[in-house]
């Protein structure tokens, strides 16, 4: 070990607390034993490290969408050969979303994976064949632009669609093309919950991270369908709460890995979450375990509902009245819902004369709820959910006695009845009244990070954050919102459009797939294949050779998060926090990868040079993406930091310095007691609408109450060889990128789980090969089964994103062959879309047969 002259501890940064020294482990492993001496219990000697040739660079993990805080330690004078950096969770205990889970731990192996895309590729075989030739970036852009021009000339810009998974800011640069069709993956992830929250609490409360349990102080959290395998910060906080006595329970047909950590697993039949929740609601009311004060003041259960299911409003009673001025009963009279000091009566039944002279019966939503819950006794719910009565009763009582909450889900599009499931769990939360309190359901405040790098004004003009403007007409409504007005992103609208189904208003001919593994993301593989076959142009940008690459005309290798810089707001915290990701390392040898933003400009400048130059894209950036990143994107970053600092009354230089030094900056602690006590919900009534007015008024449904119904998205299993086919997340491998990591084949195996009872009945042994046939799609696949009590009887399960990868490159990459085994759940899914919400789903039904 050579000796390094110490410089003294001039500036320290948190790299640890109790685990500061862990960084030393990584250093030692790379033969950097000297560097370990710069780490001590008080942190790291940053100046000393620098003089010794090391640098601490914080980043944000993108191995899934949670973007947890990681830290990289880099040997600054070494080539990017994989031995020049190590990563670990950001060790500062003040970081609200720090930590590295199993997926994050795969990032270095993704960085230099044999599957890493390194050169632009042009397809030479049939779509799906995986046969490519390497071409130059200029060749790729020239070809792509020429083919796009043909499409635009013939059918307009709207015939081009762009879809993404996580990179919303990066893909936004394609707005320069002025197509409205930049469409996210939401429908196969969070749409059901987003719509339910918007219907019940209004815009601003609908985002999947907008409402969350206060894990730091929680006492009991029930997680329906949620594994909590991300974000890592929530796991850390929950672990600390458990050390103070907190309990956690998972309602799920399959046992989540996270339930190993002292959690109770409530095994249930798939697609029955709404029934379970309504059963809880019934018990809370029957046993008087609900917060009556909260229900009367802050929910719309006291509101009067007409016999047709519509809320009674001033517009019903007065000519020209306000339809958003609702009516309640105050014990003596029917009054406006917003009267000062009003404490409306929960139970009331009467008749009113409408403005047109007709008389109608009215009842409170509370009375309707009581009547509705008559169908959800513990015994009835036990029959539906296959959860024992005693468990249902115990969970309801625990929620009350421990002042618990029901987590409001993230990924929740599973069966087609999921919007009602989220509405039902919010019904339980409304009865508990545990909002915006320590340990309750709390609301994420704004983090103050200025929005996108490129934004569009109402007149259509595009503006960069650093002052360039491009006047364009408004592009119109995206095709998914034309077809599904409530959605926050339904990619199947593109599928319908290409295939001419479901009255799609026009045909999309060109598709850009940006960091989105379509085959594992979107339901019904056959339809996805058919769509890809019928497109005139398919371009994919990614970091890893995903299956969809093989169906693309051009594959463009993008940089990964370890190689780029980004300012973001931290999503999963109640303390407003911004985070800065720095480039930890350069790309691996031979990887000619480029940033997405630069790709967008290179394509646009070939089609519309004036648009690119109007937004400040200069000729000197053409062949110099690094210069583009440093100067162009750097200027935008500086402006965003200025805006961030201004929003919090801070000095921009100090904000930037802290972001770089610590990787994050938190502007204030959590504040409780605001919503709905000081600030109302944004629903039509301003209350938590347990009886959702919006979908009733729109005619989507007759009642605003959540209900259980059989999943409409697939044929129900009906014989002893037919099963629900479910899937869910592994914290070790379930993401588009981590799913193709070498370690994933061992830590998130791609077998299909079957319950021992079912296996015994069908004489299927652990490890046996079985044939699965989709009841709706007819897709037949052979896979290995794992006999395990971790799955509910009558149900099969497999981890999402880790099975059924069909790209030939896996068989050509030693050690990666097994990632091609197993099944992709979407081989069996029908592609059904909820006609109102636009929500898709990920479960299906299959017939199983033992392979002899």
């Amino acid at each position: 070990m050579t000796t390094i002259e110490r410089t003294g501890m001039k500036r320290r940064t948190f790299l640890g607390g109790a685990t500061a020294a862990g960084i030393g482990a990584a250093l030692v492993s790379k033969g950097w034993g000297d560097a370990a001496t710069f780490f001590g219990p008080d942190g790291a000697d940053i100046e000393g490290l620098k003089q010794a040739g090391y640098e601490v660079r914080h980043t944000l993990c993108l191995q899934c969408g949670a973007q947890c805080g990681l830290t990289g330690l880099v040997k600054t004078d070494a080539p990017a050969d994989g031995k020049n950096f190590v990563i670990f969770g950001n060790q500062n205990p003040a970081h609200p979303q720090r930590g590295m889970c199993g997926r994050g731990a795969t990032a270095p192996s993704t960085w230099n994976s044999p599957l890493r895309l390194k050169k632009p590729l042009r397809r030479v075989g049939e779509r799906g064949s995986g046969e490519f030739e390497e071409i130059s970036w200029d060749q790729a852009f020239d070809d792509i632009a020429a083919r796009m021009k043909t499409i635009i000339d013939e059918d307009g810009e709207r015939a081009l669609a762009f879809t993404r998974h996580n990179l919303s800011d990066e893909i936004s640069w394609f707005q320069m093309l002025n197509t409205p069709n930049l469409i996210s993956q939401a429908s196969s992830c969070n749409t059901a919950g987003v719509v339910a929250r918007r219907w019940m609490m209004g815009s601003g409360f609908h985002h999947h991270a907008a409402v969350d349990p206060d894990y730091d102080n929680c006492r009991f959290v029930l997680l329906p369908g949620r594994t909590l395998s991300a974000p890592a910060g929530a796991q850390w906080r929950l672990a600390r709460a458990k050390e103070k006595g907190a309990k956690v329970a998972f309602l799920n047909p399959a046992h989540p890995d996270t339930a190993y950590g002292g959690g109770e697993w409530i095994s249930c039949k798939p697609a029955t979450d709404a029934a379970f929740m309504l059963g809880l609601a019934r018990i809370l009311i029957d046993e008087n375990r609900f917060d009556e004060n909260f229900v009367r003041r802050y929910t719309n259960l006291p509101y009067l509902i007409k016999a047709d299911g519509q809320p009674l409003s001033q517009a019903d009673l007065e000519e020209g009245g306000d339809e958003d001025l609702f009516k309640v009963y105050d014990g003596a009279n029917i009054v406006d819902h917003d009267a000062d000091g009003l404490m409306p009566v929960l139970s009331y039944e009467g008749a009113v004369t409408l403005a047109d002279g007709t008389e109608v019966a009215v009842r409170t939503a509370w009375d309707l709820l009581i009547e509705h819950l008559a169908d959800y006794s513990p015994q009835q719910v036990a029959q539906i959910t296959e959860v024992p009565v005693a468990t249902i009763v115990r969970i309801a009582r625990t929620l009350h006695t421990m002042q618990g909450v029901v987590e409001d889900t993230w990924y929740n599009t599973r069966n087609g009845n999921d919007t009602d499931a989220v509405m039902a769990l919010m019904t339980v939360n409304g009865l508990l009244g545990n909002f915006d309190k320590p340990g309750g359901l709390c609301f994420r405040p704004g983090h103050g990070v200025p929005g996108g790098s490129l934004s569009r004004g109402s007149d259509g003009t595009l503006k960069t954050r650093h002052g360039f403007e491009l006047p364009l007409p408004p592009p119109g409504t995206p095709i998914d919102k034309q077809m599904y007005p409530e959605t926050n992103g339904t990619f199947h609208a593109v599928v319908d459009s290409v295939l001419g189904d479901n009255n799609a208003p026009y045909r999309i001919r060109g598709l850009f797939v940006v960091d989105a593994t379509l085959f594992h993301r979107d339901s019904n593989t056959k339809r996805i294949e058919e769509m890809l076959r019928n497109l005139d142009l398919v371009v994919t940008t990614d970091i890893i050779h995903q299956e969809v690459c093989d169906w693309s005309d051009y594959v463009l290798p993008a940089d990964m998060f370890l190689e780029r810089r980004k300012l973001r707001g931290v999503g999963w915290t109640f303390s407003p926090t911004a985070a800065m990701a720095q480039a930890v390392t350069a790309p691996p040898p031979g990887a000619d990868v480029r940033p997405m933003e630069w790709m967008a400009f290179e394509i646009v400048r070939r089609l519309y040079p004036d648009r690119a130059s109007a937004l400040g894209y200069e000729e000197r950036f053409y062949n110099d993406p690094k210069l583009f990143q440093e100067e162009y994107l750097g200027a935008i970053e500086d402006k965003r930091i200025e805006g961030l600092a201004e929003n919090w009354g801070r000095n921009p230089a100090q904000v930037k310095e802290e972001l770089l030094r610590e990787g994050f900056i938190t502007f204030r602690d959590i504040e409780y007691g605001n919503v709905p006590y000081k600030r109302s919900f944004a629903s039509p009534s301003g209350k938590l609408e347990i009886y959702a007015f919006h979908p009733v008024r729109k005619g989507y449904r007759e009642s605003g109450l959540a209900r259980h119904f059989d999943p409409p998205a697939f044929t129900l299993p009906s014989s002893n060889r037919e099963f629900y086919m479910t899937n869910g997340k592994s914290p070790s491998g379930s993401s588009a990128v981590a799913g193709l990591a070498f370690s994933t084949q061992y830590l998130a195996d791609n077998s299909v789980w079957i319950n021992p009872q079912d296996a015994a009945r069908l004489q299927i042994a652990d490890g046996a090969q079985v044939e699965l046939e989709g009841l709706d799609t007819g897709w037949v696949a052979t896979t290995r089964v794992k006999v395990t009590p971790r799955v509910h009887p009558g149900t099969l399960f497999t981890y999402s994103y880790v099975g059924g990868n069909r790209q030939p490159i896996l068989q050509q990459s030693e050690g990666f062959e097994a990632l091609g085994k197993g099944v992709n759940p979407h081989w069996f899914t029908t592609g059904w879309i909820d006609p109102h919400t636009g929500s898709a789903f990920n479960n299906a039904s299959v017939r199983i047969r033992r392979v002899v």
Partner: protein
Amino acid sequence: MRLRRGQEPTRRLAHVWNEANCTACGACIIACTATNAPEMMHRKEKGWNSLASNIRRIESQNAQGRPTMMLSQCQHCEDAPCVHTCPFGAVHYTTDGLVDIDERLCIGCSYCVAACPYNVRWMHPETGLPNKCMGSACLELVAANQQPACVQACPANARDFGDLNDPASSVSQTLRRLPNRVLLETAGTKPKYFIVESSS
């Protein structure tokens, strides 16, 4: 440093795994490989048919049929069968109370692999020698008064490492405060890998 015959270890370093906090995310398993055997990150460990990590994930079920999961690794036994079995004196105790393998003396006979009742060794395909916790990198780390890679990697506060001889160490405090157990307690091996059974 190798413990000499008749000498008492100066420290009794021990691993603590809190099964009630562990979310089975696998970060510790991957971090172990990345730290101690980075050359194996894209290579299968054929003996276990797994990632070449010193930590094993074992799934099972309890008497009630509920799923259980355990992380196992070298227990750093104070009466270690592997130490007694090694014909060449390669497997030995250290003055820190750990069990280590001196690769200069090891010929890869695998006697220690067979002797270990916890079955936590794997054979390196290039050296032909047994590997286990602590890996060489983590040992260097401990020598530098640092924490092992698995402890650093854990996002759920489920791992700890420290000196049982120090009553103020976090592991000593945890083991005093929370119910815990060791594996194969009656085997007489005196293991120092403690499984904490409750968070509070």
